[in-house]
């Protein structure tokens, strides 16, 4: 495992760049624990100051330092993404492995349900939920809902691998030597799908964070919990673009792009690593 990561860092430029970008984001998040004032305190610094040596990324019209806002927002936004990705990974892995291993009618039924859920447009359903729940829509509820909507595509991918694993020799050996189905799936099959799980986790993070940013920009999340989308929402609410306070909107946008680019590069390079044919193509075969 570590050797693979080390090799990827050494030989794969995309993986290296992705890792560096994610490290920037993580360093930024680490800063949030040293913030000199509370995340919702306002008018603690002079408002509307452009980026300077004193205020690295400037200050906003609510009298907050953008750097500290950014670091806490990034932490909350990434936290949301990680929670969504974790829950939806568990669902995707269980559904994919079970459906692929059992096969036959059960597989058909599970996949029919899977495809039906996948065909539903997420945003309208989430917006309806936000609308009816209003203030009860806290971020854990939103994360859980997003997780329940965001696993169908990946469970299909995992299932296609599990389908081929079930006819392999070692699966039969395991079954004959008396391993229970759960053990076979967890101990024998799970390691085979881990690279796919890693790849889909990155994509799922991008999707979940994008969702959170979208909903927050529209003002449909808890506006007292700083997030990247929330920063843009507040900037819009104060007409930052018209007032010429461009750094208020540009800074969160730049860092969201850094985060997404990092995750995307990691996903791409790992996907290339999984697919042996593209590895051969890289070597010039």
């Amino acid at each position, binding site marked *: 495992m570590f050797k693979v990561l080390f090799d990827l860092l050494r030989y794969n430029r995309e993986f290296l760049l992705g890792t560096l970008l994610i490290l920037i984001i993580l360093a930024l998040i680490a800063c949030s624990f040293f913030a000199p004032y509370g995340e919702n305190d306002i008018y603690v610094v002079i408002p509307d100051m452009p980026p300077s040596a004193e205020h690295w990324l400037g200050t906003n019209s609510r009298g907050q330092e953008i750097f500290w806002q950014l670091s806490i927002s990034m932490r909350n936004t990434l936290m949301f993404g990680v929670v969504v990705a974790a829950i939806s990974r568990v669902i995707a892995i269980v559904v994919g492995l079970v459906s692929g291993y059992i096969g036959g009618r059960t597989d058909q039924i599970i996949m*029919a349900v899977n*495809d*039906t*859920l*996948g*065909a*539903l*447009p*997420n*945003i*309208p*359903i989430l*917006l*309806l*939920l*936000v*609308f*009816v*729940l*209003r203030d*009860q829509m806290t971020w854990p509820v939103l994360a859980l809902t997003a997780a329940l909507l965001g696993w169908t*595509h990946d469970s299909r991918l995992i299932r296609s691998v599990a389908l081929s694993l079930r006819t392999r020799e070692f699966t039969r050996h395991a079954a004959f030597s008396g391993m229970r189905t759960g053990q076979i799936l967890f101990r024998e099959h799970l390691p085979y799908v881990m690279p796919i799980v890693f790849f889909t986790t990155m994509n799922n993070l*991008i999707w979940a964070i*994008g*969702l959170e*940013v*979208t909903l927050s*920009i*529209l003002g*449909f999340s808890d506006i007292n919990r700083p997030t990247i989308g929330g920063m*843009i929402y507040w900037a819009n609410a104060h007409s930052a*673009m018209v007032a010429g306070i461009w750094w208020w*909107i540009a800074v969160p*946008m730049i860092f*969201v*792009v850094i985060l*997404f*680019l990092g*995750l*995307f590069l990691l996903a*791409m390079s790992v996907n290339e690593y999984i*697919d042996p*044919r*593209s590895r051969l*193509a890289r070597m010039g*075969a």
Partner: protein
Amino acid sequence: MNGYLTYVAKRFGQFIFVVVTGVTLAFLIAHFSPVDPIEQTVSLLTNFGSTDPRSVEILRQSLRELYGTDGSLLEQYLTFWGRVIRGDFGPSLSAFPTPVMTIISRALPWTVGLLTLATIISWVLGNTLGAIAGYFRNNRAMKVVGVLVMAMQPIPTYITGLTLVIVFGFLWPILPISGGAQLNLDPAMTWTYIQSVITHGTLPALTLVLVGMGGWFIAMRSLVSNIVTDDYVVYAELGGVPSRTIFSQYVARNAMLPQITGLALSLGNVFGGAVIVEFIFNYPGIGKLMVAGIYAGDYSLVLGVTTISIIAVAAAVFLIDILYPLIDPRVKLG
């Protein structure tokens, strides 16, 4: 032909299944919510003055009839289905007493037009470029295109849209950045009106194309670069088949098929992107309608838009599904 009909019937069954699930989900979310739409509406209306208790009670009664919240859960569920089938979601609150359906049908053509055009353009463009990039793997220009597309791909819709607004609205103002057409024009089949619709639609469509293209490009490139090394392609090359024919008939045609399936799978997400694009560009489609409905606390409008968009997306997926066998002769019919 008989096999095709069976296939269509099967897909239609799936379409119905998706619609039933989606509509049921929308119903359940709306009805198990801790917020009572009627009390919410009453408080919204009584905020503006008139608080005579008797008229409030009459209002409450009529709202209950309007929303069909009388009777048991099952009765309400059946009533809701009756409404969905008749396309009657009651009057809108924010634009009382215009029926919700009238407002939706006014907005729907904008969204359908924008999304259809943008999706087709991004699919065709992404796949064509991706196929070329995969076929000429070692071409330097295509590598540059690849890097550019890969860098564009993970950028969220909002940021792409806002960047276009800044560039084409303020720095180099050549395109309108708000609305669906010029306001003082009559919607008619005149050249000025059509021109106005096109110029207003350019930036929203461009946003959707830029956001959507990358995924198709990357998938198509890896599909094609895998097919190129297949034995039958090598055989065709050795047999002296012109490379143009190999590219279009042997490689691209095969690689296209999973991409059509992918198109059907991605439509739900495309619709999600449209909501934010319509919000940025103030485009008069149903995404903007839904956001406006939420801001205004318009219960029937939000429920109506959700239901209609679930049905519309499912219908579009169904349409792609039944066209698919016409393109792929190998698909199992029956």
